[in-house]
């Protein structure tokens, strides 16, 4: 074997091999054997790049290319071209011309023109096979290779409805999608949008999606697709937050994108922090037992749960303890019948001081009503509660 390798490296070996081959061809012609068809594409592989930038293709690009198909056969051949798509579905690569079976004459060179549309990202190879007559295997093959970059779809992480008013059946918000990076040659990206959630699509729905369920997103910073997310307002007393996701999928994306949808029924346009919520719209701010003559402070945060500014009016009423004639020992609160503004989603803090008066320790309860408007004026009660005690010294025993 070593001797054979060595001889083939020499000119003598090559000449010997050529002589043998020629002799074989002459022999096969002499006995009338058919010479195998010889046709070839001008290139074996063509890598598709963007016409303008020379960079990689983007999703949705359509490019058209030409190669030559040449016969080196000594007579006319009947040829047809077939597309073979190894990794991706059909319909991406089209032979424009020639189509069907055609004659390729002796030594003739024919222009093969094809179009390719990128619909998936990542490396992808397709093939154009040239079949001669009744041959079962292709005589020549052209590989068409593309490696489009995935589309960079811009979408919000979430659409938050916050608290919605119980007076409406459904509320809507915009969901805007963009394909801001638009290199030359980038085509549109088709996306399928689907709402998925624990309750299916009972709470949320999308409006403005074409009938076929696909949204076509054209590239460019000025291009956008706006859809409406509908939040169907839950039943009264259904205060739990509702959640769902919009899933964006498509061949142009490297992975599905998700947009979180959430919202809940608004019961209280304002709420208080940190008091514990006793029941629907019932709040209480309790102070620790405080010695008569000392004071205890807690910060009360009033929160606007709505997306619009509110005017809040406060009204007070002393509770059953102590009798109404006694002044409430809570300080730092807005005056009775006064009002203040709360910006949308804004808060206002009050340092509330409980200073129990003497001479006896008692429990004090102050009831307040917080009226939020304009629009549907709602009333949210908040109770302040504090207990005072009198510190007594050690009891002296008689006779001591």
């Amino acid at each position, binding site marked *: 074997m070593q001797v054979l390798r060595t001889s083939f490296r020499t000119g003598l070996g090559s000449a010997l091999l050529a002589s043998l081959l020629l002799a074989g061809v002459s022999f096969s012609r002499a006995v009338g054997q058919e010479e195998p068809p010889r046709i070839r594409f001008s290139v074996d592989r063509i890598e598709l790049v963007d016409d303008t930038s020379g960079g990689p293709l983007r999703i949705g690009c359509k490019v058209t290319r030409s190669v030559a198909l040449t016969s080196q056969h000594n007579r*006319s051949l009947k040829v047809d071209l077939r597309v073979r798509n190894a990794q991706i579905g059909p319909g991406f690569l089209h032979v424009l011309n020639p189509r069907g079976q055609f004659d390729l004459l002796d030594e003739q060179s024919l222009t093969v023109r094809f179009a390719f549309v990128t619909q998936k990202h990542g490396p992808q190879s397709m093939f154009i096979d040239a079949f001669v007559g009744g041959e079962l295997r292709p005589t020549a093959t052209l590989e068409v290779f593309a490696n489009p970059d995935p589309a960079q779809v811009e979408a919000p992480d979430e659409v938050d409805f916050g608290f919605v008013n119980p007076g409406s059946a459904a509320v809507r918000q915009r969901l805007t999608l963009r394909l801001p990076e638009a290199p030359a040659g980038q085509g549109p990206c088709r996306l399928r949008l689907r709402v998925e959630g624990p309750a299916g699509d009972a709470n949320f729905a999308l409006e403005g999606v074409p009938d076929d369920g696909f949204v076509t997103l*054209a590239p460019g910073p000025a291009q956008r697709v706006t859809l409406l997310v509908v939040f169907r307002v839950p039943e009264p007393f259904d205060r739990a937050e509702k959640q769902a996701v919009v899933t964006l999928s498509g061949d142009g994306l490297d992975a599905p994108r998700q947009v979180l949808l959430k919202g809940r029924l608004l019961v209280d346009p304002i709420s208080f922090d940190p008091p514990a919520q006793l029941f629907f719209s019932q709040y209480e701010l309790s102070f620790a037992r405080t010695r008569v003559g000392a004071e205890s402070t807690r910060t009360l945060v009033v929160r606007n749960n709505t997306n619009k500014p509110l005017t809040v009016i406060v009204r007070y009423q002393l509770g059953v303890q102590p009798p109404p004639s006694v002044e409430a020992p809570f300080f730092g609160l807005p005056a009775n019948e006064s009002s203040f503004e709360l910006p949308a989603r804004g808060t206002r803090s009050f340092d509330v001081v409980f200073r129990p008066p003497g001479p006896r320790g008692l429990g004090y309860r102050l009831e307040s009503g917080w009226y939020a408007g304009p629009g549907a004026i709602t009333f949210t009660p908040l109770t302040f509660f504090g207990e005072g005690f009198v510190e007594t010294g050690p009891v002296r025993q008689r006779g001591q």
Partner: protein
Amino acid sequence: MAGAADDGAALKFSQELVHLKDDRTGSELGIGCKVTRTVTLKNNLERSVRAQLVVRDTQLGPGLLQVIGPRGRFDLLNDQTIKVRFTYETQHHGDQSMFIDASFDSFSRPAASLEVFARPEPAMLEGPEEVDFGAVPTGAMSLRQVTLSLPRLPQGQGPCKVNVAFLGQSGDSSFLVERAMSGKLHTLMPGRKLTFRVMFRPMGADESERLAILRFASNAFDGEKQVVLSGRAVRR
């Protein structure tokens, strides 16, 4: 195929590919533009043939490419050259290829093919992305005009004419588009406007923002042109 010329083709167009561009500027064609071109077809055989030209549309609908002449079957003498005149009308953007196949005698397969290629640029409709009706008292009515137009560009740089279809509206039912828009196909030319009226009549006490979307499709661009309608109800 006996008697074929040295180049191997019985019939041969003067060129294999015609890339259609604007006559004056040399730039790519716009949407809805119609151009006429002439090529020649030569009989390379040493005998007369009876030839025929057939339009083949690979991906597009019929009727865009039309051979003006010669039409039907015609005689092409030995070594004769004949002018082939055709028109092409672009009806959408993007690469588009169609073919004129020349066959002769009883051969059904084409002896020569001419590719007619165009690459019109997409053209977006100009118009508002959003129309805000502001605060409208419940039960009252507010009217706005929405105008769509095509950019006026130098000839050959932009579309000649495009079709615009109103696909409908989604969202809050407080918005209503005038009846004339519904389901109609409108033809729009550069410099001309498509104006329609939209009404906002909020009902109910809900003061949250009301939203709707108007959707338009066109042969000039992919996807849709959208106009978002917004408004708010206030108590009387």
